[in-house]
């Protein structure tokens, strides 16, 4: 099997997987867009292998180096995106937990009705 066919196969598989997860509502359309772009790149590279060859020649890289470089680039962008999203979610989760804990304390105090003054 050639690299072109592998990319073609990978592109179809990426499309199918992305559509499946969106259909199951496990992946939102907003987040699926990036993976659709990756699938499209794979498909285009599989259908038109000369594009990769020309890009490799233009950048004075060998074919395999060009493919590796593009793959690492895509991997980096997506991993970085996931890390940023994780950090944001973590911050939101912490804020929610803090407010939950404070509210829970207030509820307990109100329920106890111990008359120790007003709380937040």
């Amino acid at each position, binding site marked *: 099997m050639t690299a072109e066919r592998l990319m073609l196969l990978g592109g179809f598989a990426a499309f199918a997987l992305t559509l499946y997860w969106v259909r199951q509502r496990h992946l939102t359309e907003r987040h699926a867009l990036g993976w659709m772009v990756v699938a499209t790149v794979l498909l285009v590279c599989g259908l038109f292998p000369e594009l990769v060859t020309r890009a490799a020649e233009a950048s004075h890289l060998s074919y395999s180096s060009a493919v590796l470089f593009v793959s690492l680039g895509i991997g980096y962008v997506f991993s970085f995106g996931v890390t940023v999203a994780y950090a944001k979610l973590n911050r939101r989760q912490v804020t929610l937990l*803090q407010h939950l*804990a404070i509210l829970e304390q207030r509820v307990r105090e109100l329920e106890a009705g111990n008359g120790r003054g007003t709380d*937040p």
Partner: protein
Amino acid sequence: MIAPDVIAVEPRATVVPRPPRAAVNLVLVPAYNEEAAIAATIAGLQSLPDGYEVLVVNDGSSDRTGAEAERAATASRRPVRVVHLPTNGGIGVAVQTGYLYALHAGRYEYVIQCDGDGQHDPAFIPRLVEECRRRNLDLCIGSRFLDCTGGDRSTCLRRVGIGVFVRLIGLLTGVRLTDPTSGLRCAGPAAWRRFARHYPEDYPEPESLHWCLRNRLAVGEVAVRMRSRATGVSSIRSWRSAFYMLKVSLAILIDRLRAEGQ
């Protein structure tokens, strides 16, 4: 050069709304797996004069810290409240929860952080508040190294790390403090209102101190005596020390790049 008894940078530029007339101070006690020490810590806070309330933040402890704190709070003649975080978030998250509580309550003037492991002597709390009032400080740190007052001065390795932070903060802000990692500190409204919104999640003391200095808040130190940890283990130990040094140094350097107020 060692700093004098109290160091103050330029007075703050921003005007912070003062709390209502009947303002009290809040002693904030973050606690994680301190079941053996938390009751004694709360008992020790009974010696404080009137005008102090206590908030224990149980940081998702896996032992009986929460139950022990509740029991001690019930027996206390001083208002002691306990907030239970559902999961362990780290010292920064626990302390910030206390500042958020104070922000929602809207009746506290100074918020004093005092660790739940019993290392901090409550006798120094009124002195920290007094110095804040007298010198119009926004943040007053209880320093182990200002005077030779005896007490626990940490391990040799940690003192080297503290020295690195002292130099780094001094280099970036021009202010030389002696104990940037101290967990015994008193924050005025300008500082703790900001901390309620933004506060580092882990190892927060040096970074938050740098933020105060960078934003020209008045910061000072008071000599205190600390006890040795009776039970439990510090959150900073073994291989974590290297990560701690790296993370905090990076955080301070990045904080330097931020715009004023951010």
